């Protein structure tokens, strides 16, 4: 009989017990039932009243907990995001992690000068193209708040620019139900119609309520639009500890989850069974600068907790962040903070992980950071694989050969030749060269090497182009 294989344990981080998860969930339900929330969208308000919510002071709503429980049941447990060519590249289910960039930065680090400067539409194009060329970055966001386009149409321009420069899935921002309708039209034009887009969505909207407990009309308008059109959406409010939410992480999570549940209820009423990516943003507000930190351990901790709550209770794929820093340059702090969140996000099995490549707490985007993070993800992926233990990997034969044959060594043994590519993590940008060769190659640091690599990808990578017909249709929608 063949011996039974030893399964490989894949390292996994847990930060909440079941009791803790239940207590946070119960607190979230108490918030929506007892405290209530401000719903400023008249249509959503009416739906909530019809469903059994009570209203005081025109738009202050209290919601029975069972509505949230029902919505959690009707939302799909998996969201499949496709690329723009119809391939299922991001099955957001269970503990599958996917990393991507972030939205709307005011500044970028210029690739040529290294200076922090205002972002423009060309930056959106470059980031999308870079994402297209990096194997571990699964989706693109704008990474820019372009200065050089009409501001009332800014998100439509940014979306169209991403479409032209990558075929990967897109996570996008919109202002209201007006511009999101245009963005939806563009997406339909790319895949050949609304039904096709509904079957194979390649886009996910990011909208946020305002913590604490405020649901503006334009934001809820987008939520309803996405629910009706079957566009996947995430609805994380900024329930940051000490800012929009209590300073203690449990309370900040409870508030953020309560706000998410309200969003989910409205969403499922507007489109039962439509895809909703669960989870608030629970970072922390720095008590010296009042900056919402992107390099803190707190955010990594709360999203790990949320992944635990997914497994214990919710079953819905979760929204997360990683690969960002509060540092103003791509220095050691940026590397340390980025690695911390990249590694823990995967170890705790977050699903859709955005903001990779941010500096200055989301104020600066950096092509070099994104390039570095591509490699940090590879390192983490290797680690999470664990240590396969079997006859081949225990290599007793190789040990016997090398140990007992005078003059032999592992480096020349067949076992090494056969296995080294899989057995080892092979870095591309992290430098392990000997000092002399490092010096001869220009004594570069990681920032410099990422700069060179980002430039190389932008110069050499070819993005499969859209047809002229599609491009013309997009231009018409953008300018119309």
């Amino acid at each position: 009989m063949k011996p039974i294989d030893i399964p490989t344990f894949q390292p996994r981080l847990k930060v909440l017990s079941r009791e803790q998860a239940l207590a946070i969930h119960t607190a979230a339900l108490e918030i929506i039932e007892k405290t209530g929330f401000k719903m400023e969208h008249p249509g959503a308000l009416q739906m909530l009243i019809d469903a059994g919510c009570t209203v005081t002071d025109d738009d202050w709503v209290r919601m029975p907990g069972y509505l949230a429980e029902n919505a959690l049941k009707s939302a799909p447990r998996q969201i499949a995001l496709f690329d723009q060519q119809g391939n299922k590249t991001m099955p957001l289910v269970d503990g599958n992690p996917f990393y991507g960039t972030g939205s709307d930065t005011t500044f970028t680090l210029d690739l040529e000068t290294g200076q922090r400067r205002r972002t423009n539409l060309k930056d959106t194009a470059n980031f999308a193209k870079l994402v297209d060329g990096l194997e571990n970055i699964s989706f693109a966001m704008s990474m820019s708040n372009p200065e050089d386009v009409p501001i009332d149409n800014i998100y439509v321009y940014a979306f169209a620019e991403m479409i032209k420069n990558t075929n990967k899935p897109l996570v996008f921002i919109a202002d209201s139900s007006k511009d999101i309708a245009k963005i939806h039209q563009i997406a339909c034009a790319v895949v050949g119609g609304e039904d096709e887009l509904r079957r194979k969505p390649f886009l996910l909207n990011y909208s946020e309520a305002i913590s604490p407990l405020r649901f503006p009309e334009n934001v809820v308008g987008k939520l309803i639009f996405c629910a009706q059109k079957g566009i996947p959406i995430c609805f994380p409010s900024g329930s940051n500890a000490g800012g929009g939410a209590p300073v203690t992480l449990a309370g900040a999570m409870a508030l953020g989850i309560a706000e998410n549940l309200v969003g989910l209820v409205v969403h499922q009423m507007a489109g039962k069974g439509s895809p909703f990516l669960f989870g608030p943003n629970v970072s922390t507000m720095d008590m010296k600068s009042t900056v919402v930190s992107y390099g803190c351990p707190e955010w990594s901790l709360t999203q790990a907790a949320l992944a635990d709550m997914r497994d214990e209770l919710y079953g819905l794929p979760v929204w997360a962040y990683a690969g960002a820093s509060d540092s103003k340059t791509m220095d050691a702090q940026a590397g340390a903070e980025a690695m911390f969140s990249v590694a823990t996000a995967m170890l705790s099995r977050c699903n859709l992980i955005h903001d990779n490549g941010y500096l200055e707490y989301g104020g600066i985007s950096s092509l070099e950071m994104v390039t570095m993070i591509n490699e940090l993800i590879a390192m983490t992926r290797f680690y999470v694989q664990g240590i396969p233990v079997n006859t081949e990997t225990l290599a007793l034969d190789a040990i016997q050969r090398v140990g007992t044959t005078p003059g032999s060594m592992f480096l020349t043994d067949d076992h090494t030749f056969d296995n080294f590519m899989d057995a080892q993590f092979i870095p591309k940008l992290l430098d392990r060269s000997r000092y002399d060769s490092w010096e001869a190659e220009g004594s570069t640091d990681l920032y410099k090497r990422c700069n060179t690599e980002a430039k190389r990808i932008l110069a050499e990578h070819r993005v499969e182009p859209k047809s002229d017909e599609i491009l013309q249709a997009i231009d018409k929608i953008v300018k119309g």
Partner: protein
Amino acid sequence: MSDFQALSEAVHKGDIKTAVAETQVAMDANANIQDILDNGLIATMDEVGDRFSKGIIFVPQMLRSAKTMQECMKLITPFFQKDGVTSKGKVLIGTVKGDLHDIGKNLVSMMMEGAGFTITDLGVDVPPEKFVQKVQEIEPDIVAMSALLSTTMPSMPLTIEALRSAGVRDKVKIMIGGAPVTDKYAQEIKADAYASDAGSAVSRAKTLMGIS
């Protein structure tokens, strides 16, 4: 000038009860109201602000001190007119039309108040006409506007334009701030100052008022 050491210490600590009691003690001892305000409360808040900007104390401690000062102010404000008390300047503040975010704006308000400015807060989603109407009504020295979203930033030049049309633009100094706002943008829309955070908002406001 009276000795406000106990009052000052209580404001530093954010000990509201003691600070209010000490303010009452000073008033009972017939201390000059302007003296209590300037040398008791504002002088202490200047020190608090200084300790905050040097990173010695944290935001919640600074805000507790500001709250303590506000509670003391409640006692002395009724005597302002009679005693001819003057403030550092009048500030009209609000988050611009279309924008509902107010954490940053509230921080600016509290810190400015701590520094001795008189604040009128219009809240969030403030349309240009409301800024104009309030400027005409209270004649502030400074109009301060905040926006968190890039899509609501255009409400800032619209508000400035509305002030101009109403003929009051040159009667006020205009300050702007918020996450997507930059110094360059402030220059483009011809605001008088840009501040990146609450602490620098206070120093910009002081510069605009010719005090430092």
